[in-house]
């Protein structure tokens, strides 16, 4: 009963029927189980999985595990090459195509509606990782499967959504029990599912106002960062993007040093620079876009972010960048 309530609320927020929604133990689990089950159901067609070069690593790993992956490149804004993706989908032996709703690192929206048409024409299911968008932005219709993660909209960790439109076949490759049609073995975490539903409902009631504000603040940040710091590259689409994310790279700056310096000023940011990764490899997203990977910072605004914080960020940033550059003689 409680679980039905949570499912009904979550399904309504995604614009689907409750029986099209499965609850999983995380966004990653939703991607791994969903992509695998959609691919396996089309085993007779082939094992090909077409995906963009800028998918979240959960999709890249899931695709590599579930079939033979074909990667399609993006432009310098991080947007998929539409013609290349559509023609890759038309190749024989493609089980499923995977494309994110928007990029999680640079915010650029992907043309889901347009490529959903191409996939439909080719008879290939389109699997959309919506984790970066759900709760922040509208995901166009036309997908066969869509995944999301509750902690991305302020819900609890440990709740993922796997939405599968009617008519999309699934063949889980593991023992199927009665829960969630076998897509998420074991009993769902009902309190967490309720919390995820309440958080999404709350988020959506304030979404229009919050997104309008975030979009304006990110616009201002994009302009001021580019204007006030020499040799900086503000990346991602300036307009057709998520409302709340800003990513930029500063030439000659060590990304880890900049993250640490911003932390000391009270700003918690992420970075796609190699020096901040355990692998010492730069973000595959920035590399696929061909933009500068060092000195990279990603700012995400949340519901408690204020204009004063945005303003102070852009006031302290030039001095920090200048100091780090001076330390290496630049």
């Amino acid at each position, binding site marked *: 009963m409680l679980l039905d309530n949570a499912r009904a609320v979550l399904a309504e927020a995604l614009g689907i029927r409750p029986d099209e929604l499965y609850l999983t133990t995380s966004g990653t689990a939703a991607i791994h189980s969903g992509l695998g089950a959609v691919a396996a159901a089309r085993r007779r067609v082939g094992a090909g999985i077409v995906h963009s070069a800028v998918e979240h690593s959960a999709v890249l790993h899931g695709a590599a595990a579930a079939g033979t992956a074909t990667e399609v490149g993006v432009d310098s804004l991080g947007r998929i090459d539409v013609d290349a993706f559509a023609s890759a989908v038309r190749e024989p032996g493609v089980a499923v195509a995977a494309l994110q709703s928007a990029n999680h690192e640079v915010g650029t929206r992907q043309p889901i509606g347009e490529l959903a048409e191409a996939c439909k024409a080719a008879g290939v299911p389109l699997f959309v990782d919506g984790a970066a968008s759900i709760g922040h932005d509208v995901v166009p219709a036309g997908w066969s499967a869509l995944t999301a993660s509750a902690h991305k909209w302020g819900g609890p960790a440990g709740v993922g959504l796997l939405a599968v439109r009617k008519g999309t076949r699934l063949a889980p490759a593991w023992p199927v029990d009665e829960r969630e049609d076998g897509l998420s073995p074991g009993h769902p975490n009902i309190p967490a599912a309720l919390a995820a539903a309440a958080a999404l409902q709350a988020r959506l009631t304030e979404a229009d106002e919050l997104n309008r504000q975030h979009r304006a603040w990110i616009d201002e940040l994009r302009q001021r960062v580019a204007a006030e710091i020499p*040799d900086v*590259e503000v990346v991602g689409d300036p307009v057709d993007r998520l409302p709340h994310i800003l990513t930029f*790279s500063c*030439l*000659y*700056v*060590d990304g880890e040093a900049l993250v640490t310096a911003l932390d000391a000023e009270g700003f918690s940011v992420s970075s796609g*620079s*190699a*020096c901040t990764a355990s692998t*010492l*490899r*730069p973000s595959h997203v*920035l*590399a696929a876009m*061909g*933009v*500068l*990977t*060092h*000195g990279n910072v990603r700012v995400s605004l949340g519901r408690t972010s204020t204009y004063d914080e945005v303003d102070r960020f852009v006031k302290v940033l030039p001095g920090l960048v200048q100091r780090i550059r001076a330390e*290496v*003689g*630049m």
Partner: protein
Amino acid sequence: MNLDLDCRGLLCPLPVIKLAQALPSVAVGDTITVLADDPAAATDIPAWCRMRSQELLSATENQYVVRRLN
């Protein structure tokens, strides 16, 4: 004229910093050949050329040839 710049073993942004610091030591039209094995250099040296309006003549495995344009 060509200047060789051995940045092997250096992590980004150091190869790009070395390249930028070496640039004034070659004449406009001359080249700098950078050896760099940090994986980030494969993206960052071409990005530096674009941002600083210099010309990337070639980028093969761990070797980048840059021509000074200004």
